[in-house]
């Protein structure tokens, strides 16, 4: 009896997390998949069926939006990485006793509501705003030049909104790197660049990996930046899902699109982990 209890203990201890997964992940997921297969309309109600037509229609009508979302997601994540790595590196290595202050400053804008932050960018980037107004006044830019309503405004908005989510995981790994390794490399006549490439970059790879996932997945599904900063032709898949839910009340379509987005993200993540995944990283770091 005691031995049995001993064997069961780990399962019993993990029970709360299983229940959590069931209630907040598995049940909603199944109901969404069920909805995608249902037929009916909001007036008569829906009946579960084996109707896969919705997926075909979704694929045919919204290929462009899917492609665009993945392009925006990838571009914004790469740019975020390029910007946040030096920031995290600087804080971890040269932040001194003010490290937590600097981290706090990175986080500070995120205490403001998400939508308000995007609206603020709409104001800053506007045609006659602080940024473009003076440049146009001195004749550096033509009068009709605009940043808003372009794909770069959307990508820029995504970069801005994911900045802190990339700095934090990078900071955590960079902070943990044993400084004696860097000193040893210097003692062995490694140039700073070589030391960085051979010591720091490999050891920070897990942070790069984790941050990439975190930022990429959120950005691909975003719809707020495209709605507020974009123009005609920057519609992302998130905007279409929102329209399907609220405007068309086409719940099966919205559910089908959401499932497809999830599936595509899962495939992308699997491929990504296969190439850069845990094992590859360990080998690289070793």
């Amino acid at each position: 009896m005691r031995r049995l209890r001993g064997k069961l203990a780990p399962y019993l201890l993990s029970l709360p997390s299983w229940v959590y997964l069931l209630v907040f992940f598995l049940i909603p997921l199944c109901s969404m998949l069920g909805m995608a297969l249902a037929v009916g309309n909001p007036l008569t109600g829906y009946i579960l069926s084996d109707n896969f037509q919705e997926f075909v229609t979704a694929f045919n009508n919204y290929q462009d939006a899917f492609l665009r979302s993945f392009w925006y997601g990838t571009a914004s994540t790469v740019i975020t990485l390029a910007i946040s790595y030096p920031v995290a590196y600087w804080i971890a290595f040269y932040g001194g006793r003010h490290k937590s202050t600097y981290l706090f400053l990175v986080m500070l804008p995120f205490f403001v509501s998400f939508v308000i932050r995007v609206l603020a960018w709409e104001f800053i980037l506007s045609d006659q705003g602080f940024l473009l107004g003076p440049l146009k006044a001195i004749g550096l830019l033509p009068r009709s030049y605009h940043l808003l309503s372009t794909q770069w405004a959307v990508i820029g908005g995504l970069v801005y909104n994911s900045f802190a989510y990339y700095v934090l995981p990078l900071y955590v790994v960079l902070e943990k790197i044993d400084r004696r390794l860097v000193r040893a490399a210097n003692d062995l006549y490694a140039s700073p660049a070589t030391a960085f490439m051979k010591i720091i970059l490999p050891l920070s790879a897990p942070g790069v990996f984790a941050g990439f996932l975190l930022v990429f997945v959120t950005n691909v599904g975003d719809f707020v930046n495209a709605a507020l900063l974009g123009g005609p032709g920057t519609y992302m898949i998130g905007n279409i899902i929102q329209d399907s839910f609220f405007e068309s009340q086409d719940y099966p379509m919205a559910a089908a699109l959401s499932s497809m987005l999830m599936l595509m993200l899962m495939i992308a993540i699997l491929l990504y982990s296969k190439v850069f995944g845990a094992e590859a990283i360990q080998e690289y770091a070793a």
Partner: protein
Amino acid sequence: MSQDEQRGRDLTQAFYRGLTQPRLSRQNFLRGSGAALMAALAPQIARAEKVTDWKAWWAKQKPTKNFVFANWPLYIDVSSNGKDHPTIDAFTKQTGIKVTYQEVIQDDPSFYAKIAPVLKSGQSTGYDMMVITDGWYLTELLMQNFLVPIWREKVPNFDKYAGPSVKNPSFDPGNKHTMVWQSGLTGIGYNPKLTKREINSIEDLWDPAFAGHVGMFSDVTELGPFGMMKLGINPTTSTPADWEKAAVVLKEQKAKGLVRQYYEQSYINALQNGDTWISMAWSGDIYQANSKGYKDLKFVVPKEGCSIWHDNMCIPVGAKNPLSALAWMNYYYTPKVAGLVEDYVNYICPVPAAKDYILNVIKDPAVANSPLVFPPESELARAHEFYSFKSYAQYQQFLNIFNPIVQS
């Protein structure tokens, strides 16, 4: 008070009210979609007995001393201390009915998503009156018989004071189920300093001189009628063939690079910032922008016509105090009460006689003489109501025609 309501008060009026379609807030979106999913999946369980003889039902109702009123934020008069609503307090004093006033409607889709499962299960929403914009969601409530027919004999003031633009609307012939709370026009907003000329026609939205600086609405129930009116088609009585024609000209407008963006409610920021020079616009927002200091912006009802939308008072099935709701409707439809509300709200007043009350009693000529709050009859005559969809399939047909313009 919930956090949402508090936030609603803090934000500007333009952001929240009088706007017809999807509003943007991630929290609301998530909450709304969750509720919508639940609504969609809710089994069709036994409904409460269906009332067929509403006359007999009304005869059975007894007067109560309560009234629960669900409305949009910032949509009624507020006293100078910011806490009380003078017209509501006066109503309570006059009738002894205690009013629970709740600013719970942020937009039609998510409010509908909250009440639909309750109504479908035959239970009471807890509201005796709610304010719903004409459009698909109101149609959906009407189609499912979720609104109590109004006992018209109890609301004599409506026949006496209501303006012609709110009587007998196309979506509810004979005002059987609804009475307008406020209306608004969708016309053209522009900045003469940037357009460098006066605007008076929908054609101006297609003027190549404004390429890249034309704002259009992303809500296709608003966008579609502008394509139709350009072609001289009356949207209220349009047909699917007309929709196809309108989609062609709207696609052309986009292909030529005229459109800056298909906006949700942030079109007003774009106009204020000068990103758009000319844009589809709501009359009330331009009024607000003018009074906030953006004095250059102008609103015009184009010569081809404009759209008019109505936010309507209606009684949901299952209301506990329906007689109180009728008393409120009758109370609202007087020059005095409508005038007091209008002087604060500044959309379009359903009671034309309130103009004299605001001018002579409240002494606020800025509101009374504003053509945005009391538009002249000649302008209202050119205002078209939205097309009322006859079925969900027809609504889908409309969306399938116009959505590709916005969604690419």
